[in-house]
C-alpha cells in the first residue's frame, strides 16, 4: 500500500427498487487513493463488484464539480458528508483516515422515494418551481438590459440565493423533511430583483403552497443550512415567510377581496 492509500469499510444501503425493503451491505474498500474523490472511490468499489459478477451500487452524479446538484448521499448520517459547503462529489478521500468505517445511505424523505440503492427521485422540487419560479417574459419582448439598473447589493443578494443547486440536501437533513431552504432560495432569487416584482406576491404564495403539498413543516432546526453545499442563508427563509404573509393579504386585495 502506498502512503497515499487507505483501507476503509463501507456500510452501503442496497435497495433493489422502490418496492424492496432495503438493507445495509458491508464492503471492504482497500487501497483507496486519498487523492480520489468519494465518488471515484465508489467507482472503484463498483468496478471490483462487477469483476466479481455482483451488482454494482446504483448512485447518481453528473458534473462532479458541485454545480449540477445530481449527487446525493448521506455519508455517516450527514447529507453530502462531513465537510461544510460541499456536495458529495466534491468530497475527497483525504478527509478520511485508514481504517474508517463509513455509512452510505440515500437522501431520505417521504417526498424523495428511493428508486434504487442510493438513487432517489427529487421530482417534487421541480413541481415547486413550476408553480411560479419564473418571470413571465416571452422571448423577444425584453427591453435593453441596461434600461433596468439593479443595485449591486440586490444583484449580489439575488445571486447568493440563485446559487442553490437544487440538490435536496436541505430536505434530507431536516428532521421534518421540510423544503424551506430550497424554496426560499428560489423565491428570493427572483423576488429580490426588480425584474421579479410584478409577480412577487403571486409567486411566493404559489410556491410556498405547492411546497406544503409535498414537504414537511419548518420548525427552525437549521439543519438545512448545515448541510447545504452552497451555504444558502437561513435569512432567506425569513424573507420568504415575510413575503408569504404579506402576499396572503395582498393577493386577496388584488383579487377583489374574494
Amino acid at each position, binding site marked *: 500500500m502506498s502512503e497515499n492509500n487507505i483501507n476503509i469499510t463501507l456500510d452501503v444501503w442496497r435497495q*433493489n*427498487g422502490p418496492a424492496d425493503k432495503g438493507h445495509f451491505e458491508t464492503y471492504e474498500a482497500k487501497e483507496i*487513493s486519498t*487523492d*480520489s*474523490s468519494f465518488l471515484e472511490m465508489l*467507482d*472503484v468499489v463498483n*468496478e471490483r463488484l*462487477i469483476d466479481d*459478477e*455482483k451488482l*454494482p451500487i446504483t448512485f*447518481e452524479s*453528473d*458534473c*462532479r*464539480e*458541485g*454545480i*449540477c*446538484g*445530481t449527487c446525493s448521499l448521506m455519508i455517516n448520517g450527514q447529507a453530502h458528508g462531513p465537510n461544510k459547503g460541499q456536495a458529495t462529489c*466534491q468530497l*475527497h478521500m*483525504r478527509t478520511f483516515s485508514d481504517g474508517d468505517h463509513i455509512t452510505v445511505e440515500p437522501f431520505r424523505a417521504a417526498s424523495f422515494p428511493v*428508486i434504487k440503492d442510493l*438513487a432517489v427521485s*427529487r*421530482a417534487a*422540487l*421541480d413541481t415547486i*418551481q*413550476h408553480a411560479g*419560479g*419564473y*418571470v*413571465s*417574459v*416571452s*422571448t*423577444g419582448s425584453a*427591453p435593453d*438590459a441596461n434600461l*433596468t*439598473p*439593479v*443595485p449591486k447589493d440586490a*444583484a*449580489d443578494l*439575488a*445571486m447568493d440565493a*440563485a*446559487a442553490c*443547486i*437544487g440538490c435536496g440536501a436541505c430536505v434530507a437533513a431536516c428532521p421534518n423533511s421540510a423544503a424551506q431552504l430550497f424554496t426560499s432560495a428560489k423565491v428570493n*432569487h*427572483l423576488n429580490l*430583483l426588480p*425584474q421579479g416584482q410584478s409577480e412577487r406576491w403571486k409567486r411566493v404564495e404559489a410556491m410556498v403552497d405547492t411546497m406544503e403539498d409535498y414537504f414537511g413543516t419548518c420548525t427552525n432546526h437549521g439543519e438545512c443550512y448545515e448541510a447545504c453545499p452552497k451555504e444558502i442563508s437561513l435569512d432567506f427563509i425569513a424573507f420568504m415567510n415575510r413575503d408569504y404573509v404579506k402576499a396572503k393579504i395582498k393577493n386577496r386585495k388584488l383579487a377583489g377581496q374574494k
Partner: protein
Amino acid sequence: MTATMEPSSKVSSPRLDSKVPQTDDIANMWENHKFSMKLVNPNNKRKFSVIVVGTGLAGSSAAATLAELGYKVKAFTFHDSPRRAHSIAAQGGINAAKNYQNDGDSVHRLFYDTVKGGDYRSREANVHRLAEVSVNIIDQAAAQGVPFARDYGGLLDNRSFGGAQVSRTFYARGQTGQQLLLGAYSALNRQIESGGVEMHNRKEMLDLVVKDGQTCGIVTRDLLTGEVESHSAHAVVLATGGYGNVYYLSTNAMMCNVTAAWRAHRKGAFFANPCYTQIHPTCIPASDDHQSKLTLMSESLRNDGRIWVPKEFDDSRLAADIPEAERDYYLERKYPAFGNLVPRDVASRNAKTVVDEGRGVGPLKNGVFLDFADAIARDGAETIKAKYGNLFDMYANITGEDPYSRPMRIYPATHYTMGGLWVDYHLQTTVPGTYAIGEANFSDHGANRLGASALMQGLADGYFVLPYTIGDYLADKLGDGVVPTSDPVFAAAEAEVADQTNMWLSVNGTKSPEHYHRELGKIVWDRIGMARDKNGLEKAGDEIATLEEEFRKNVRVMGDGTSMNTELEKVGRVSDFFGLAKLKARDALVREESCGGHFRVESQTEEGEALRDDDNFSHVAAWEWNGEGADQTKHEEQLEFKHVKLSQRSYK
C-alpha cells in the same frame, strides 16, 4: 485502416445546400431572410408538434420559445430534471456585442473575432447572425432575472476573454452557465405549468424515426422502467450537447455523450468535422488512474494569472524558490500582443510543448503554473478573491494546495467539440425536419471556439434562430397530421432498440463498459489529441477497431433491462463513442492541414505554428453514413469568405 484520400473537389456537394441567402449585404442578411421565410400563422401553430431532445441552454430555450409561439412541444432529457444539463457547469461567461464598455466593440467585431478565432473554418453567414442576436440574449436573460454581475451604478459589468481585445463577456460570478440555464429552465417551467410543453425527464432518445425521407419522431427508453416508447412529431430538434467524452477524461459532465447525434447520423444526418475538438488550456492536471473527469479552471483566470514554467528542464524546486530570471513566461515571450490571452488552441499547444520538453511542474510533471502573485500584489488579495474566489476554493479542494500562496498547476483537457451534426443556415440537418442546435451542431465555431461563445451560440440558436427557421419548414405541412406511432416504421425502430438492450445484457463478458470507455479514451487522447500525424491516425483507426471488436464480445453489463441500470445506459453510449472515434480518426487523417484545434504535425510553420492550407481545405467535411460495416462518404461544403480577410492567425 485504409486511408481513402479523397482529393478536395473545390465545389460544394449537391447534397449540402447551405441555404445561405445569396447576397453580399451580410449586415442585413438575417433581417431580410426572416422576412422572406414562410410563416405559420399564430392560430395554426398549435396544429404542429415539435420534439426537443435535450434541455441544456439550447434545448430549454428552444422548447420554451416554441411553446410561447404556440407550437405543441414535447421535451426530453435523460436527466431527472431539465436543469441538470451539462450547461449548468459553464463558469466564465457569455459574449455579446453590446459595447456597454465603449471600447470599440460592435456586431462586426464580434463576427470578425469569431471567424478569425475559428481559424476560418466556419460559415460567415451563421456567425454574423450569431453576433447580431447576441445582444438580444443579454436582454432576455436579464429580464428573466439572471443575476449578472453589476457595477456600483447597477449597470451590467463585463470582463474580457481569450481571443478578444474588448470587454464583452457578461457573467454571473463563476456560475454563468448555471444562471443562464436556470433562466432558460424558468421559461421552460412557465410553459410546463401552462401546458405548452409536455416534459419527459429520465427518458433517453435512442433512435430518430424517418419515413419517406422526412422526420416523423423518436424512440425513447424510460431509464427507470426500461419501457421503450415512440413519440411522433412534425419536426425533431436535437439539442443534445457535445461529444467530448469520447476522450473519456474531459471537463464534460459524466453523462455527456454522442448517442442522440450518432443515431441521427445513422438515420441520414451528415456528421461534420468530427476531428475538431477544443482542448482547453486551463484545467487541473490528472492526479492518478482513477480520475473520472477533469475540472476546468475558468479561462477568465488568464486575465490576471501569468503562465510560466521553469527555464530549466526537470526543475523540482517549489515555484517560490525559482527566481524571476529562471522562469519562462512562454506565452508573454512568444505572443507579446496577446500574451496570456491567446486563443485556447494556441495556449494548449504551447503547454503541451513545454511539458513534452520536460519542463512540466507538479508531482507528475504534467502541468504548467498559472501564477497570481503579481495580480495579488497589484490589486490585493480581496479583489482577486472577489473575482475568482469560488474558482480558487475549487482548486484548493481538489488539489489540497492554496492558490493564494502558491501558483496553480494547470494542463489542457478536452473541453468542447466544434464538430457535430451538419446543419444549414436554418439549423436543419440533412434529414428534412430534423434540426440540431447548441453544441450538437457544427456551425458557428469553425475549427476553434472562443471563450464565452458556446453559451451565446446555444441561446442564440434556441431563443432567436430556430424558432424562426422551423416555421419555414412547417408552413408547408399545414394540414398534414403526424405519422401515428402505430405506423410500422415506429414498431421497427422500437424493436431495434429493444433488441439492442437485450443484446448487451446477454454478452456476459468480463469487463465493464467503463473499462472500455477508459481504454478508448486513451487511444483517442494519444492519437487524436493536441497533435496528430498520419502515422498515428492510421494506427488509431486500427486500434479503435480492434478494441471495439473486443468490447462487443467481452463487455459485461450487470443488472436487468426493466429497472434503473446505469451500466446498461453506459454501454450503449460507449458503443456509439466507438463509431464516432473511428470517424474522428478518419476525418483528422484526411484533413492534411492544421487549423484551430486540429494540429497536424506535418503542417506547421517554421516557428511551429499551425499552418492552414486554404487552397485545399477551406471546406466543411460532412460525412454520410452508408450502413454498418461500410465506410462513410465524405461530402464537402466549400467555405467562402467575403467579409473577413483570410490571414494566417497571428497573436504575436
